[in-house]
């Protein structure tokens, strides 16, 4: 067999411009902390994804408490509400469409986001929306924290096993909280 040359899922082949791999979790945390208007975008698959806090929704709730705006896509805001937390809710297509609009003032009306962090999606759907943003929202930085490398983000975690990913996410969340 020939050498493996493609990172992440082979289900969708990447284009020439590919995400930088986030070398260590602290780098992602620093980028999020440094951003003026970061937005954490939580996909509808978050519910089943185990993290050190329980699942990815529990983790997102934790992040939202540190003052970072969180938006849930699909219908998953319902799960946040069942757990007693209000976050923003917007369908993924609506959000992608607005993130590429330089005049959009964000979910809170306070201004444009400079960083969007994606996690909790099916691979291909995140791949596609990130690619829309790669070409049509070039001044927006995107980060993927998914467990498989997402080539269309600006920055992405590399593909890793579930246990390792849990640790990485935990370090990122802890370092974000430390800074607040």
């Amino acid at each position, binding site marked *: *067999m020939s050498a493996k040359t493609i990172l*992440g*899922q*082979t*289900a969708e*082949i990447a*284009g*020439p*411009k590919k995400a930088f791999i986030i070398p260590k979790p602290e780098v992602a945390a620093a980028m999020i902390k440094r951003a003026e208007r970061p937005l954490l975008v939580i*996909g*509808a698959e978050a519910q089943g994804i185990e993290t050190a806090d329980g699942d990815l929704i529990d983790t997102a709730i934790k992040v939202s408490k540190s003052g970072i705006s969180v938006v849930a*896509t*699909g*219908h*998953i*805001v*319902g799960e946040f*509400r*069942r757990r007693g937390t209000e976050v923003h*809710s917007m*369908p*993924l*297509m*609506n959000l*992608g*469409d*607005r993130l*590429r609009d330089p005049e959009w003032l964000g979910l809170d009306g306070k201004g444009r986001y400079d960083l969007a962090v994606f996690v909790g*999606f*099916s*691979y*291909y*759907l995140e791949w*596609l*929306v990130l*690619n*829309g943003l*790669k*070409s*049509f929202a*070039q001044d927006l930085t995107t980060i993927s924290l998914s467990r*498989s490398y997402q080539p269309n983000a600006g920055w992405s975690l590399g593909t890793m096993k579930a246990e390792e990913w849990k640790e990485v996410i935990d370090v990122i969340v802890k370092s974000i909280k430390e800074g607040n």
Partner: protein
Amino acid sequence: MFKGIEIEVGRIQDSTWDEPMGPTPFPSVGTLRNWDRKFLNRYKPFYMPFCDLCCLCTYGKCDLTGDKRGACGITMAGQQSRMVLIACCIGASTHAAHARHMLDHLLDEYGRDVPLDVALNTGVEAPHVRLVCGIRPKKLKDLEDVLDYVETQLVQLVAAAHTGQEGDNIDFESKAFHAGMLDHVALEVADIMQIATLGMPRGEPDTPMAELGYGTIDASKPVIMCIGHNVLPSVDIIDYLMENDLFGEVEIGGLCCTAHDMSRYNKRSKIIGPISWQLRFIRSGIPDLIVVDEQCLRTDVMIEAKKLGIPVIATSEMSCLGLSDRTHDDPDVIVDDLVSGKADGALILEPRRVGEISVKTVQGVAERRGEKKPFDIGEISVIAQECSGCMECVRSCPNTLEIAAAVGAAKEGDYVPLAMLYDLCVGCGRCESACPVSLPIISMMTKANEDAIADEKYPIRVGRGAIQDTEIREVGQPIVFGEIPGVVALVGCANYPAGGGDVARIAEEFLKRRFIVLTSGCSAMSIAMTKDEDGLNLYEKYPGNFDAGGLVNVGSCVANSHITGATIKIANIFAKRNLRGNYEEIADYIYNRVGAVGLAWGAMSQKAAAIAAGCWRLGIPVVVGPHGAKYRRMLLGRKEREEDWNVYNARDGEEVYVGPVPEHLFYAAETVEEALVMIAKLVMRPNDTNKGRAVKISHYIDLHKTHYGSMPDDLHLYVRRAQDIPFTMKDEIMKVLEESGWVEDKIAIPDPTLLDRMVRRRG
């Protein structure tokens, strides 16, 4: 010259039809450009490039990422819209070629003067043809002109995609709409001719039930498996079985739309399942002969069939599979070659020669069945030992299924995880192609599930074809006034994110809410395949009428024309708008008044893209499942931008704000729940009466509360005045409205139109 018919510039003009000719008969590529732009201004394309490169010409490959331009100057937006156009052209051409093939054959066999008597109690036999072409086809031969027109237009659209032709993305989009409009004409032509000649149901709501599922096939008999969309070869097989009294001795089952049309022709033929079952069923070793016609075939069918020694008969010039053309050979010689294995297959391009050869072949082959058997269940764990756990299968699976873990469990003799994947798998085979040790993963999954599969037997109401004019008369008013909350069409392929059960779930949700639910194609099959605790499926629980709470299976892909055709007929029969060559006015009517939404939860093909495009131009929003985002662009409204949602009030010409109804024209939902809520919202129209809007709002709120755990935050955009508020929710809604600064009567309830010329009197 025949009486009453004039040939004018090569086209038939019917002077016996007293309906005046509208402004746009036989529209050319640019005729409806301004109409399209009204939508494309409101619903701006959001592109999600599925590929960053273009490799169409030798200047390339070109990287178009971001602001880069190709060597020809094309931008990323231009390229993505060009690919949308190309997809729609492929889809529409496929339907048009299918229609042309059938027409040539049926004209030969049945003669040119077969009347187009296609639905009971119906005068408007071909709403799309009347609307687009401005002619009223009466006989089979009249369809020739229609197809001539469609083909000519499609050639021009494909030409626009050449390097250095069209460059503007909005113009590409408009052309894609044109392809979609042509597609529905081609669909209609294809379906009405088969109804008129082959005796398929003529719009009866209570068509008989046919049998669907793996378990309906009696494998002790010789089994013919027909795959594809063009029913003519299968019709010949059925006729041969009938004429020779062999129906009880040979099993004939179909996959994909051919199966629908076979059951419309003779309900004793069986529907094996949707497209995703091709590999599984071939691998089962049950079929003794595979007959393919066209569209959505697995192009590796020869390779797969050969492994099990199953002969293949190809029957379409569109899909010859490398086989020798044996159309004019002696049938007995062909049968001998196929039965003995001397030939792997045969190409037989004359449908009326397929029946005898197929039946004789299958009888011969069945006697040697089992020579190359698929493996036994016990062998799964032996085969699984080869697995190295490399994860290549998972990396290549479009649904990222946990294949490696399941194969790992199978190594230890636990087949449950493999069996569990069966319902979630779309049958694409990419995992197998990726696997370095070539494990037959699909076969292993299917085998692990074999007991459950053997029991799969479901009834499905045979596709009825058109909606009768009398039905339209009865429901036109409640639909247009909004009292029937909406018309939802669940159509399209089987590329589901998590199995076909989701389609049945969505159908049931809207049936319970007394929407009219229409269905066709693979979706209609998936709806059949979910039973409740009493063992009943939705076809057994809901009637087939085009009325509130009806579940209407129209039939195959080509029967989708009857769904959009019904919306056109509402404008014509209920509202008495002229159809003839009057596209914009009718689309304007549908867009502003008919609360119809299409849902293609597993849309996969270019044909599905073309069908969707035909809906867009008519103003019917389409929702797709998450894989549908791979069509690479959405048409999305911005509900918060008030300036985007003005229409003319036809009464006085005033431009008024009507709110974001419908919010989107093409939209991919991430989850079933999101789709449910979005559909409930997308059925709202500016013309809804207060009572109608209140009914629609109550469904929207109810679904939103169930799945999002709260009231919607955009109600102020949909409640126009207090009478729009569902009575039982009044206090709750008023509270939300007050918080959002709602002002009564800010949203108008005009006689809505996007067309300046529809204004009756200027104020």
